[in-house]
């Protein structure tokens, strides 16, 4: 089914090009990081002999690169969706993209050339005391993070200012009066996607600030200007930064569902009170749940531990009740056709539910004490990443490219989209079963009795690879006409 380009035609062609570039850069990064993931599973299954120092380098790059890639793609998609009603600056988006990509380049070089292998959450003081890498490599890694944070801050600040300007202020784009009184204001409420953009922008700015607060003292320490950096402070802030970035990518990608699904179901997704309320709650809850990664740190204050548990449970409520139930309600009885976009959205909802449930279990303190260092953790985040956030992003990318190029999707493309689900499900299931059987995570060398899980996972990864190879080809062959079509958008303004 070919969708009408109605919505995108209202956008600025330059902004749509910048948004497509962000989505493509994110997609490219996702594919490359996926290859690294396959290498790691081959190694854990004993099918490939990789030196442990290289395993940890790759693990570090895979984690940081995947989060950065999916977030970039999601932000690009959000910019395209928001630009239908909000005037964005193409120049600012391109500058943010350049800074962001330079940051990811630093991370690539710090790991692949510099040998940095401390894990993507780089818990201080480990990075400064690496036996396999130099301080210069740690600093390059940190500088990469800082550049990503700056790129994110530029993107989010612009998004917040632009949406606030369109609706007459931050409180108006967040629909606070509506949330607090329940009465619809006279002037139109923002669409859900604009409200979500403002939420994402606020949390993105706070997240970038947390990154700077964490990273700048570490640069000071390396330069001899700071005597000591408290390890617990560093751990809290690296997770407030890193965990929030990961969460941000998921919620940004979820925002794309609000922009896409109404076009395929021919039903409006209104800014109802539950939608406005839920997304406003997410501003706080997204920042509050990182602490569930510190349950095993005895020095962490009890209040923060409890905040981690409560925040993790609470953040699930708006997601489940509003977005997932809302999306299913929109789809139910709509006679929506199954296209690549809708298949990936459906898979994304499925992955978000199961990944989220896995996360809720991990966020429960007694379970966490047993499960947190097992494969259960990669199981839950791979589920809501690969089958959740990433699926939403590729759904939107596919939607934009095929809409702009007026290209109908083929039966093979739809089969490839379903295959993405089959491959992804088999792949993450092996993580879950391994976690339930207490197989530890972050081990380069797996004992023979653990190797069965990655060995079963590998064929599913190959299915995923086949699916992505076709979808990549499909996107690339329609990219030229789609890109040209953005020039027509600009010329019709």
């Amino acid at each position, binding site marked *: 089914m070919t969708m009408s380009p109605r919505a995108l035609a209202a956008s600025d062609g330059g902004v749509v090009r910048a948004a497509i570039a962000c989505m493509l850069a994110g997609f490219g990064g996702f594919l490359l990081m996926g290859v690294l993931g396959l290498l790691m599973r081959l190694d854990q299954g004993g099918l490939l002999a990789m030196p442990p120092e290289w395993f940890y380098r790759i693990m570090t790059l895979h984690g940081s690169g995947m989060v950065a890639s999916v977030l970039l793609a999601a932000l690009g998609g959000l910019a395209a969706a928001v630009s239908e009603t909000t005037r964005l600056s193409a120049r600012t988006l*391109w500058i943010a993209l350049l800074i962001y990509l*330079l940051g990811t*380049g630093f991370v690539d*070089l710090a790991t692949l050339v510099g040998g940095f292998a401390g894990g993507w959450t780089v818990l201080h003081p480990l990075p400064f005391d690496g036996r396999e890498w*130099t301080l210069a490599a740690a600093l390059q890694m940190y500088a990469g993070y800082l550049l990503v944070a700056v790129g994110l801050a530029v993107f989010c600040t612009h998004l917040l200012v632009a949406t606030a300007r369109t609706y007459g202020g931050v409180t108006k784009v967040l629909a606070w009066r509506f949330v607090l009184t329940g009465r619809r204001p006279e002037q139109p409420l923002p669409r859900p996607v604009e409200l979500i953009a403002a939420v994402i922008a606020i949390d993105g700015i706070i997240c970038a600030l947390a990154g700077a607060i964490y990273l700048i003292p570490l640069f000071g320490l390396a330069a001899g200007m700071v005597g000591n950096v408290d390890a617990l402070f560093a751990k809290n802030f690296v997770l407030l930064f890193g965990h929030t970035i990961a969460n941000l990518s998921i919620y940004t990608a979820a925002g794309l569902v609000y922009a896409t699904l109404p076009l395929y179901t021919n039903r409006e997704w209104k800014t109802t009170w539950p939608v406005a309320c839920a997304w406003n709650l997410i501003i706080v809850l997204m920042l509050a749940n990182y602490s569930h990664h510190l349950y095993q740190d005895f020095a962490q204050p009890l209040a923060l531990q409890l905040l981690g548990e409560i925040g993790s449970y609470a953040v699930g409520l708006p997601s489940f009740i509003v977005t997932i139930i809302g999306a299913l309600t929109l789809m139910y009885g709509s006679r929506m056709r199954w296209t690549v976009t809708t298949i990936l959205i459906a898979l994304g909802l499925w992955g978000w539910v199961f990944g989220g449930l896995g996360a809720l279990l991990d966020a429960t303190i007694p379970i966490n004490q047993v499960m947190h260092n097992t494969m259960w953790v990669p199981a839950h985040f791979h589920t809501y990443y690969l089958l959740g956030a990433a699926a939403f992003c590729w759904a939107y990318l596919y939607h934009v490219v095929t809409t702009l190029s007026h290209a109908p999707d083929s039966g093979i493309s739809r089969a490839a989209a379903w295959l993405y689900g089959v491959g992804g499900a088999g792949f993450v299931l092996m993580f879950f079963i391994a976690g339930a059987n207490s197989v530890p995570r972050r081990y380069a060398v797996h004992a023979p009795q653990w190797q069965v899980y990655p060995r079963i996972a590998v064929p599913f990864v190959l299915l995923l690879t086949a699916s992505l190879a076709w979808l990549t080809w499909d996107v690339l062959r329609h990219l030229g006409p789609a890109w040209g079509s953005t020039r027509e958008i600009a010329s019709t303004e």
Partner: protein
Amino acid sequence: MIAPLPVASLWHWKWEAPVAIAIVAAQVAFTGMWIHRRASSPDARPRWPALVAFTIGLAVIGLSIMSPIGANDELLLSMHMLEHDLLIWIAAPLLLVGVIPLRERGRALQAPERSLVRVVTHPVVALGISSAVLWAWHLPWAYDRALRSETVHALEHASFLGAYMLYWWPIMAPASLTPWLRGNASRVVYLLAGATQSAILASLIAFHADVLYATYTVAPRVTSLSPLADQRLAGMLMLFPGVVVHIIAAIYLLKDK
């Protein structure tokens, strides 16, 4: 182990008459052309910022070569790298800010000349030449050769400056001078490619397990840095300023279109 020299030895300047003469000559020639163009084309006069930028660009060249930065370039790789940073990231684009308005108002090139300029300033060629020059001079053999010979050293600096004026040209020159890199996407790709190739080289230098350039292992130590630590610092000095300059360039050169 050679005992460190007093820190004061770091702060000496090096008078280089040929460099000073070349800088003054370039300034005089440029100012003459600038005045002539202002007088001859009252409708499209080159503005003051062009003269100011060119003058600062020349001053940066003088500073990089004759200040303690250049004066210590045979003792510390980090200082040598800083010297190169100033030449390629600061001086080269500033000189172009001055030269481009004059070129815009200059005589039209003849056909063969125009074709040659068109080929050389093609982004792929410009990026290829500037990258090749940067990488070639950082080969241990070439770098050590430059450190041993004043003439080769001067050639190294001149080639860096020339190659990087070429690098910046396609992205800084207006549409009347170059048809390339008119859109944001191509500009971002170009800037990313330029920043990435130098970042890869910088990382290879910073993270190399041994001292790459033999001259620095036998040079008198003027700081407490070991030759390897100096090399790591040099790599970082090549990495970070390059990225910052590319971000500043993006802020100036990207447009809302």
